[in-house]
């Protein structure tokens, strides 16, 4: 087996069937959950700091504003099947988080096309959006709203969430009195109770104590058993190998390899040597 190199197209990605997105033919391809077509993301930063509006206006009128373009992702073609767990590896700054943001709808690609079928639950950082002065109960409702749930939906979920986080004793205490482990447990419980079609996990399985880590891993397994698609970013190669059916290696914004985890990891490691 040879891994595709940069010049090779990503031969091992089944690109043959396009994901149909017109409503009338939607049923004809149920398999593809995520599809990136020739995606590029370009950050445009002014090449020098322009301190004031006055200065900016003058230069703008003179046509003298120079932008430094930075392509965080380039020519990325990738498709992820429904129910698949895909691991993303690569050095810091390779574009992994940018890729996740595209799928979570946080960023819109500069060029190319992103297609996502199903609800996406981001598991980027637990407790982002929690407020320390509010109680656990209030934070659950607030966080649920952030994820797009109605009050009624949250009422249904509430008990399950507190059960999972094992926080019944502290649920009406303000979050500032929680330990960081409790904080993480609550965040994980809220974010994973949503039964997403696509779960995005960005380097977060390391929080909490061992028991909780096991619980988190079990819950991930549950998701996969139910047919959810999982995107996992990690520097922990063992985890990638263990959990993922396929791995993708990003390098300087380009997809270097996609394939079996052990092979992709090997190629990645060779490049690091």
């Amino acid at each position, binding site marked *: 087996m040879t891994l595709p190199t940069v010049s090779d197209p990503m031969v091992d990605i089944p690109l043959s069937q396009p994901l149909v997105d017109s409503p009338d033919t939607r049923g004809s391809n149920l398999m593809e959950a995520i599809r990136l077509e020739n995606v590029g993301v370009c950050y445009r930063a002014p090449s020098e700091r322009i301190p004031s509006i006055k200065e900016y206006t003058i230069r703008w009128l003179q046509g003298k504003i120079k932008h430094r373009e930075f392509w965080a992702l380039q020519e990325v073609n990738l498709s992820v099947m429904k129910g698949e767990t895909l691991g993303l590896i690569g050095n810091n700054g390779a574009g992994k988080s940018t890729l996740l943001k595209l799928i979570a709808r946080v960023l*819109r690609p500069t060029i190319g096309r992103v297609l996502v079928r199903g609800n996406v639950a981001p598991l*980027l950082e637990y407790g982002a959006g929690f407020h320390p002065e509010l109680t656990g109960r209030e934070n659950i409702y607030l966080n649920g709203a952030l994820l797009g749930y109605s009050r009624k939906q949250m009422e249904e979920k509430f008990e399950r969430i507190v059960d999972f986080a094992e926080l019944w004793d502290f649920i009406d205490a303000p979050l500032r009195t929680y330990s960081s482990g409790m904080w993480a447990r609550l965040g994980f419980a809220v974010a994973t109770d949503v039964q997403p079609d696509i779960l995005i996990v960005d380097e977060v399985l390391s929080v909490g104590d061992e028991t909780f880590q096991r619980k988190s891993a079990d819950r991930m397994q549950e998701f996969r058993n139910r047919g959810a698609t999982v995107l996992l970013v990690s520097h922990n190669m063992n985890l990638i190998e263990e959990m993922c059916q396929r791995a993708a290696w990003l390098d300087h914004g380009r997809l270097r390899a996609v394939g079996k985890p052990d092979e992709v990891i090997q190629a990645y490691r060779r490049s690091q040597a």
Partner: protein
Amino acid sequence: MDSLPVYDSSRRGMPALEELRELLRYSNLVIQTARRNIVVRYKRSILGIAWTMLNPLGTTLILSFVFSRVFGGASSYAVYVLSGLLCWTFFAQTTSDSMHNLIWGGNLLKRIYVPRTVFAVSAVLTGLINMVFSLVPLMVVMLFARVPIRLTMLILPIPALFLAMFALGVGLILSTIAIYFIDVTEMYTILLTAWFYLSPIIYRKDMLPQDYAWVVHLNPMYYLINLFRAPIYDGRIPVLSEFLVAGAIALSTLVVGWIWFSSRADDFAYRV
């Protein structure tokens, strides 16, 4: 049958309409955020939520004293000032909050998708709730100042709605600029002070020298404050033309702000 939602980045309707649709989908977030804003503010205090009324009441008492005793105006003058001040506080607070919420909520914007207008809309909703609370101390002062509380006050939701629309429009415009130039947040503080004195809040338009009266007429807040004040201070229902002018100002500001903001919204995650 497959009924999963499909997101396609290449399909783009009108950003302004799409933003509106998403906002409606996230209406629970707007409510929860407004709730948080109000609860958190008084959470650690002993009197708690009572401060939402005590706070304006305190300000009110001081103002009434200053205006009726120190400046020697009629005691009803305090009601004039207060009703204007209510509008002003609402406007100043919500427009600044819209801007700050978007900038400080930026961390969130980078992590998960939420409609970008949520920040401004929940700021305005928070302001409206606070405004309702501060109607109570206003009425207390009206009793003391012997300004009759009339049924005309039942019309207040309309002027309040216009004010909210105007504030939301301005808040969105400011937020859009602030994403590119953070300096705007500081500049706006200064601008607000100037704007306050250019609006007939603590003075009456007829107190101004004739030569300067036109300045007031250029000020959109003048029309909005008047519409709000008439049912309280004058005890009258504003005439149709007053409604129309204020309504037109509010609507056009909101539409411009909303369209501009949503057309730039995709850029925010790149910038914040």
